[in-house]
């Protein structure tokens, strides 16, 4: 099962991730989830970026919050809404919105 997890919050409970039986996992950082891509709280990568999987950040939401694209963690690939649509239909099968 290929699952894309939408992360829209900065503080979120990661426990529900333990129940996803995914062979392939992608994290799509949107809304306030974009902070995971650019902040290093206490010099550390966010716990989300420490998960096993691929990481994407929505550029529009990053710029909305004044975050600069040159601060994006190298693990994370910047994407647009158009890219998101392709990820949804062609890279992943199941979608989850993490709250």
């Amino acid at each position, binding site marked *: 099962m290929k699952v894309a997890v*939408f992360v*829209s919050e900065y503080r979120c409970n990661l426990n529900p991730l333990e129940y996803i039986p995914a062979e392939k996992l992608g994290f799509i950082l*949107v*809304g*306030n989830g974009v902070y995971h891509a650019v902040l290093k709280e206490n010099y550390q990568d966010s716990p989300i970026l420490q998960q096993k999987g691929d990481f994407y950040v929505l550029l*529009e*939401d990053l710029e*909305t919050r004044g975050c600069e694209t040159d601060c994006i963690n190298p693990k994370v690939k910047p994407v647009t*809404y*158009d890219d*998101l*649509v*392709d990820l*949804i*239909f062609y890279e992943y*099968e*199941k*979608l989850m*919105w993490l*709250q």
Partner: protein
Amino acid sequence: MGYLTIGCFASLTGSMNYDFLLRLSKAAQRKGHRVSIWFSGNGSSSIKKGQKILKDYSHGEKHLRELISNGVEICVCESCAYARGIMKEDVIEGAKWSAMHWFLSKIYEADRVLLIGGE
């Protein structure tokens, strides 16, 4: 092309989850995919017509109307709307008004399902 069914439980105003839904649906529709949107919970207030456009607040009516005219199916949960004092005649033209099984029937046909939470 694919078929995406989205459930939106996020509230209208001030929740960027709702803005996300509008932009994602537009992008999917533009790329030729079929899209259905179900508004439930606090998301149900989104389909009220006559929302004043104030630049300080998310204003989705214009985008919803555009989506509908481009063939996106939009439906609101009737009991969720009632509970917020929104009646059938308050709903923007072209949006549907039904019970929760509408959402399930659209999920049945869908290739992809995204439920956007309300917390």
